């Protein structure tokens, strides 16, 4: 029972770590973008190809980054978290 308790604590800590890291990444990416919008307009106005400014590309990348971070979490949860939860339940 103590072993089970320790494993739940370890799993909670692992989930906490990944949640905090991914949240921090999302906050940094989004407020980095807003910071550029507020303080570096000339950079965002620069054109990569006709019609495609740095700002538009970065804005779209914020959306892609949201998807990617979500996917990273779901993949971790499906492969690691759920498997450990199933083991813990199986032993209950």
């Amino acid at each position, binding site marked *: 029972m103590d072993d089970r308790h320790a494993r739940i604590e370890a799993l909670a800590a692992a989930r906490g770590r990944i949640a905090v890291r991914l949240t921090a990444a999302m906050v940094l990416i989004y407020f980095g973008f807003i910071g550029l919008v507020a303080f570096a307009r000339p950079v965002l106005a620069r054109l990569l190809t006709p019609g495609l400014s740095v*700002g538009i590309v970065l804005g779209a990348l*914020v959306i892609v980054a949201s*998807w990617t971070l979500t996917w990273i979490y779901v993949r971790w949860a499906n492969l690691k978290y759920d498997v450990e939860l199933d083991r813990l339940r199986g032993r209950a």
Partner: protein
Amino acid sequence: MSPQTTAIGEPSAVAMAFFFAFISVTLGITWWAARRTRTTEQFYAAGRSVSGIQNGFALAGDYMSAASFLGIAGLVSTTGFDGLIYSTGWLVGWPIMLFLVAEPLRNLGRYTFADVLAARLAPVPVRVAAALGTLATVSLYLIAQMVGAGGLVRLMFGMSYETAIVLVGAAMIAYVLFGGMLATTWVQIVKAVLLLGGAALLVVLVLARFGFNPAALFATAAARHGAGVLAPGKLVSNPLDAISLGLALMFGTAGLPHILMRFYTVPDARAARQSVFYATGLIGTFYLMTFVIGFGAMVLVGPDAIRAMDKGGNMAAPLLAEFLGGQPFLGFIAAVAFATILAVVAGLTLSGAAALSHDLWASVIRKGRAEPVEELRVARLATLALGVVAVGLGIAFQGQNVAFMVSLAFAIAASGNFPALVLCIFWPRCTTAGAVTSMAVGTLGTLVLIALSPTVQIDLLHRTEAWFPLRNPALVTVPLSFAAGILVSLVTGRSARTDRSAAFSAWERKMHLGPMEE
């Protein structure tokens, strides 16, 4: 194309046909759902029968409001790049919700987010505080949607404002009263599919004219309306304001009671996780499409014609639809916009009714002694009352500028609901007094600072100066609410620490393994 040639505002047979088709289908769903809505679990949580992907569509349906479809497309069509700032802001709250709230919420509660607080802390004070936070968020959001609906329907169908509001109110009451969460869920799913389909059709028709190359569309826009449309413009004149709005959007999403309530409709935490994954994909795609639709309207319809129709630019997407597909397509998009409002108000009403019947009536007033049958009756009465109040407020606020109410709702959700929820879920030392203080400080602080902000002082009251410089108070109220919650918890929770840590281990077990365990 000039505004004189548009059929917008004339009663259109096609729009009416699409609109009545939507009403018939959704009322059919309600009739089907009504026979499966006999218990509180079915009324509040659709009997936990909704699958991950279905809930993903329903979450997207609950979240993609007419304001974000018509408003962002309009903003992009008149200012270009600046609309993208909003699009990204509305999306980035979703990953945060997944990482911090979705799965614990599913495992720790039953019907409302207050259930989570009440399961760990003293139930009566935290339920009262959370229910008040819910009602504040829901009513502000509801007023904004109702007033938006009245204006929109008058503009598009030529119907009177009051008729439109009463129609919206009646349909929404019918869905929730008879069909509960099951009907509301399927209305959201139908609406999400229609809205995403309509937007996708607009995007394909726009891009077809530019060789399916978005860059060619943007380049044409820059050639006609200046290179400025591809760069940040006037929207972010005050960086602190932008950051404050960003905070409200990012953390407010994870504190919206009607969104949080959807996690109880799925069978387990795993399905809750999947549903956020699908919702994030759908909502992100939707905002990318809105950006293209906005630029399409800028190039093909023109900013002047759009502003001539509606100063706020809200008619950009309908005008573009008319340009591309004539009256039938206009009718379809108009009906989709109306369906969008109906679905969002239904979700809000259900969440407000749950706060009244589940949190306040059954748990606080009746102290948990209410029979489920009684709670269900109260929930239906609350739905009816909220619907009537919403119609009344919608008519009372006619012609008022209520756009700020949505960002106010997000600010309250971010500073009143979100900090207490996170502290309660993850922090072993969180106390009842701490959580209640955090909710009270967050909600009241937001209301006071909004009242003192330029939005109310200058825009509404026409004063020359405002006491508080920021339009959105989240930059102050979110940290303040966290600080208040932490400080009060530390002060009130000095004794019996070992006892609480054993209780917190049990809490953690339930958070991860779910309620079946034990």
